[in-house]
């Protein structure tokens, strides 16, 4: 073989190698593009009906931590938790529960959290009542029996933090004109999102629902101060006493103005 032929062969084999590598890289990149978009969509917020187990890190960090091993599911004594199948909206293999089916019973010994090896369920959450899986909201005030003036109270009674997470606030019943409405009112300071209220709602479809916090919570502007809170914090009103200016009455004896008569 002449030198030129050897050179040509080397050139051809280099060309084959580079083209082959480029082809593979291109195929993998295309696949990666699809997988990347799919993954990005999965890392968005959870669907409204799905709750993470207690102590779950926020969704973005949860998906880097949870290894989908299912040990929390095994630890749950009430079969509340399940792992998402690939066709579901929840990220494949991750644990969640649907409150209307089986709510979280808030076990004080936190079996799901202690079973989690990865730290996706935060082990520093020692008080189960500090869990914030979601927030209960009375979504349908038109069909809630208490809003209609009845004394259903079932969500209130079933709440593990009765009178803290849900209270009944008395309001005047303007329809009857003489009765009281006992309005179930959720307090986010205490609500764990366990979903027992949603599970127990007597309606065909629950009027009170647990939804993810991002969906349920609004947020005041950072500059807002609630006057009454500031006042109680300071122990006094923060604005000085209002000046009581003397009332100025029309001067009836002015020669320029006629006397005023009603």
């Amino acid at each position: 073989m002449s030198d030129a032929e050897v050179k040509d062969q080397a050139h051809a084999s280099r060309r084959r190698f580079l083209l082959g590598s480029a082809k593979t890289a291109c195929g993998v990149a295309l696949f990666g593009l699809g997988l990347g978009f799919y993954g990005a969509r999965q890392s968005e917020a959870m669907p409204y009906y799905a709750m993470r187990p207690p102590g779950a890190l926020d969704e973005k960090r949860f998906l880097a931590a949870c290894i989908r091993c299912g040990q929390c599911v095994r630890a749950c004594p009430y079969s509340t938790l399940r792992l998402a199948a690939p066709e579901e909206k929840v990220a494949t293999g991750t644990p969640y529960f649907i409150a209307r089916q089986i709510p979280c019973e808030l076990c004080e010994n936190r079996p799901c959290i202690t079973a989690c090896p990865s730290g996706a369920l935060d082990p520093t959450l020692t008080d189960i009542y500090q869990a914030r899986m979601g927030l209960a909201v009375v979504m349908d005030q038109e069909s809630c029996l208490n809003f209609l003036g009845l004394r259903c109270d079932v969500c209130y009674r079933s709440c593990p933090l009765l009178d803290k997470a849900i209270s009944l606030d008395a309001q005047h019943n303007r329809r009857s004109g003489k009765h009281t409405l006992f309005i179930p009112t959720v307090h986010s300071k205490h609500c764990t999102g366990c979903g027992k209220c949603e599970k127990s709602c007597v309606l065909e479809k629950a009027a009170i629902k647990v939804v993810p916090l991002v969906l349920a919570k609004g947020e005041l502007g950072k500059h807002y101060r609630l006057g009454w809170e500031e006042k109680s914090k300071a122990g006094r009103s923060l604005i000085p006493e209002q000046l009581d200016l003397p009332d100025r009455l029309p001067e009836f004896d002015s020669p320029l103005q006629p006397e005023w008569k009603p």
Partner: protein
Amino acid sequence: MTDSKEIGALAISRKGWLRSHQWLLLRRTVQVVILLLFLAGPLTGVWLLKGSLAGSRFLDLVPLHDPYIQLQGLVGGHVPTTTVLIGVLLVGGFYLLVGGRVYCSWVCPVNMITDAAAWLRRRLAIEEGMRLARSTRYWLMGMVLLLSALLGMIVWELLNPITMLYRGLLFGMGMAWLIPVAIFFFDLLVAKHGWCGHLCPVGSFYSLLALGSPLRVRANGRQECIKCQDCYAVCPEPQVISPALNGAEQGRGPVILSANCTNCGRCIDICAEGVFSFGSRFHNQ
């Protein structure tokens, strides 16, 4: 070369059916026993292995964790816990000793599916089909790590057929069974040894784990080789055999050094001349 339907006929006539399938039978037993260790809990209430292949606890005590999943979590920004680190060291250390792709041929449930596809492919004499580069899996493995870093999540677990199949069997299948079925037909009709041999990033990660693992298949009896090609026909990674089997003239030793050898032992079974055996990577002359 023998006819495709007669692969292994010589070994069977020489050694008997059982001895020419011994490693295969042992391998299937191990694969099924591991699955049963997991299934015993939900089925009978006797908890031996709790969790799944991604992570589990043996006898409620010893943590076992998949290193590739943890690596994705790590580049995604999650620092592993001590429990997980112990689990990764136990699993990683074990495969470091016996060969990383022992995971593929002795543990992974998808192996049974792709082996079945490869068997049927031989029976039906389906030609090779789509040609993928063997290196595709490394590109994929790298891409998964890159995506994990970019998205801050364990990306491959969205698709991983291995853990999906295990989760399906242990926790409820949903539509997850479609993925192994798709892999079976991909391997049968589209690409020979397509999934495990060319694409799976988990297997390619385990192969890198075991670059120096001491347990290897050796072609110690290579001078007895009668070039019947049966080992190439049954091997899921046939490119690994040749350097060891035919390398005597180039001064290469008899050890199959490629990390892509899965230590499945099928070549040992199928060889009528007893060329292959398990051994160490050392004394490679």
